[in-house]
């Protein structure tokens, strides 16, 4: 078990390393750096000024060296200015260069500054993660029970009318991407075009004070998409269990159908959906990007869009690391949880 965990953690670190290196390389391409220089030092500056600005702000070294600085395995750059004072990556403006640390990177807990928001990356990410966490929590609360119920009901009697209609619904919701269902939901339930106006088509106020009116549509938009998929998986697993020998035996013994489903079939049928639910997390991150932008909810997905759109290098890297972490940790949990649900499987 420990070895397994260790292997997983190593994979996780390695993946994070590879991904950030790729993101770092892409955001540090020549034209992107030029864009950074221009947005920081004024859009009118000449090409020579761009070069000198980049030089003065530590962008002049090879990409790999700067990646090392960002990681915190190489000492941060220091440049002596014309007036004799020393500026550097690890020297906050106005502080004494003597007492500044040599290394300042992710390993030291320093995530850098966002160029768009003019705030420390760690602050922005924790703020946006908290908001997205809130959204995810309610999505799970709606999606998981809903999907299991749909799946179990459909899978109880394979081929029945209930099965067919519920399956059709779940295929439809899974086949509809968020950017379609979100717009449809806003039009139907939030705009005066249809006139229902039950809910809000904007979730900005939900950042502070989420309630039924302002949070329903974003939650439902994400939940619907994931719900169909989990329901399909649950249904498949349920139908398989319902044809197993021990279920037939129970029926022959005269156990009530209700009890067969609840007592005998359900636990075994839920093993597969558990993995699927855990694997849904990365997918949800995906949907969050669209839904948060659509509903103007300033969480993690919205931050990612802003960071990418503005070539905000350090923010984008921070977002990538957190994403890798979320994806791999949920997979790890799903693997471990699987063992506990299904004793036939051994990790090592």
């Amino acid at each position, binding site marked *: 078990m420990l070895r397994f965990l260790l292997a997983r953690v190593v994979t996780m670190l390695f993946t994070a390393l590879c991904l950030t290196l790729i993101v770092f390389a892409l955001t540090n391409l020549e034209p992107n750096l030029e864009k950074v220089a221009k947005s920081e030092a*004024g859009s009118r500056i000449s090409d020579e000024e761009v070069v000198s600005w980049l030089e003065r702000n530590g962008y002049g070294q090879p990409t790999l060296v700067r990646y090392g600085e960002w990681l915190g395995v190489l000492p941060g750059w220091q440049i002596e200015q014309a007036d004799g004072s020393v500026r550097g990556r690890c020297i906050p403006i106005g502080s004494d260069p003597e007492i500044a640390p040599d290394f300042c990177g992710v390993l030291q807990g320093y995530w850098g500054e966002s160029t768009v928001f*003019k705030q420390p990356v760690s602050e922005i990410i924790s703020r946006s993660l908290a908001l997205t966490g809130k959204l995810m929590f309610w999505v799970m609360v709606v999606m998981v029970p809903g999907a299991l119920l749909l799946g179990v009901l459909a899978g109880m009697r394979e081929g029945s009318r209930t099965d067919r209609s519920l399956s059709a619904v779940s295929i439809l919701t899974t086949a509809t991407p968020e950017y379609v269902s979100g717009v449809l939901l806003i039009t139907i339930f939030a705009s005066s075009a249809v006139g229902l106006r039950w809910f809000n088509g904007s979730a900005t106020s939900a950042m502070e004070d989420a309630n039924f009116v302002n949070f329903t549509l974003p939650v439902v938009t994400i939940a619907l998409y994931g719900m169909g998929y989990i329901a399909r998986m649950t249904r498949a697993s349920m139908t398989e269990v319902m044809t197993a020998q021990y279920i037939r035996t129970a029926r022959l013994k005269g156990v009530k159908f209700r009890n067969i489903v609840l007592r005998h079939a359900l636990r075994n049928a839920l093993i597969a959906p558990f993995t699927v639910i855990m694997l849904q997390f990365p997918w949800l991150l995906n949907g969050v990007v669209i839904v948060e932008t659509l509903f103007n909810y300033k969480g993690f997905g919205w931050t990612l869009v802003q960071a990418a759109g503005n070539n905000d290098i350090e923010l984008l890297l921070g977002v990538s690391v957190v994403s890798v972490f979320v994806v791999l940790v949920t997979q790890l949990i799903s693997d471990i949880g699987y063992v506990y649900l299904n004793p036939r499987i051994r990790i090592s």
Partner: protein
Amino acid sequence: MTHHSTLKADIHAAARMYAEEEKSGKLSRREFLTRATALGLTAPAAYGLLGLTAPTPAWAQDKPMGGTLRMQMETLALKDPRLFDWSEMGNFARGWLEYLVEYEIDGTLRGMLLDSWEANEDASQFTLNVRQGVTWNNGDPFTADDVIFNITRWCDGTVEGNSMATRMSTLVDPETSQLREGAIEKVDDHTVVLNLSAPDIAIIVSMADYPASIVHPSYDGGDPSDNPIGTGAYLPEENQVGVRQTLVKNEEHSWWGTDVYGGPYLDRIEYIDYGTDPSAIVAAVESEEIDATYQSSGDFIDIFDSLGWEKSEAITASTVTIRFNQDSEPYDNRDVRRALMMAVDNAVILELGYNNLGTVAEDHHVCPIHPEYADIGPVPVDPAQAMELLEGAGYADYEFELISIDDDWQAASCDATAAQLRDAGINVARTVLPGSTFWNDWLKYPFSATEWNMRPLGVQILNLAYRTGASWNETAFSNEEFDSLLDEANGIADAEARSEVMAKLETIMQEEGVTIQPFWRSLYRHYRPGVMGAEMHPTFEHHHYKWAIES
């Protein structure tokens, strides 16, 4: 009432002349008021010259105290005020950083931190009377030294992106790009004299522009909300770029304006960012998350009307320029620029791009409401000749790329332009960039559209955007004759005389094909019934102390 104290017995001769011009119809009332008040007349005196009574301002008793007003606005990161390049930055900072003078919706100027001002005969010397009894919110008194400190900062042309230096050019020493020796004299603690190097009629108006926020002498050049020392009635509470910015009434500070102009009424003002997509703003309105829009545009004006919100309209010289950057090939070729200009009918762009919510313009960026406007007629629309010009220049098969922001009306205006160019047989590709990326390079795009806010005088915009090397010169236009004519125009206080020079300037703009400038916009804002004093302003200024809301 102290604000009448500046009524002077001797009224500036030029003001009397303007009044004659207004009466004979050469000057609109708005222009008259702007110009007369710029010469130091108070609004009531200016109205008096026309034989009218100034409209009485709404006083405290009609407006309810307290409450929170939530307005949709892009919340941008603040920087040194003289570097502000967006009205939004100024509008948030206005909560605590005030201005020397204020440009009113009716086109007049009135003193804020200045009590009054007078110009000499040829508008080359201005006497500024600093308002008495103003204090900073840290307790320091506001004096002539603070005014001099700020004007000195504005004049520092060595600071990259300081657009105030261009506005204050008659106070700047061109050798050092700093305040000229002797340009400012301190007469006493509340009187300052400005000695201009050349007559400049726009200097007082420029002090109302949004980068002209008055900062405390201890200000160090960073984000002004970090240590918000100002004279204003509000304080910043929250400053989350891209999310929300809030102002709260500063209860510790007794604001000078309460006795003079009334207000402030609101306890709290929240600016909430909904990006640039207008449909997100509609969703916000329908969700009752905001009380007022920053600006309503295009098709969305009708939508907001239909939601039962009140519409406020401001007639302006705001516009969009679909301009060429003459540093980039093929726009360094005058024939190419002329051809593209001739191939489009501005009336069509106004209709398709802006729902006819404005008036057709003539490609020279001087508006009929500017006092010095000269009617030289539009550039003729002639697609056939346009094609000939392009063929002559060797660019008949060239694919032009027209870039615009994803903002509704600007994108639509560019689409209408591109469609007309295609009708004329010219290859055009359209690129639409999101607002977050567009502005990174707005000065550099070879062929793109830029939104321009109005300036009260025609010469102001030409000084800012088309003079050689001006900080917002996005066309890279550089023309010696134009620059010298512009210098000449800047010194002519008489509108009629200036308009003769302006006719030449306008002709150069058209003949050099500097920009397609299709129409003048009216600006609109919507707010829910119960919001008071937050009418749309021609230069987007938010006068927070006038705002109120019925709970």
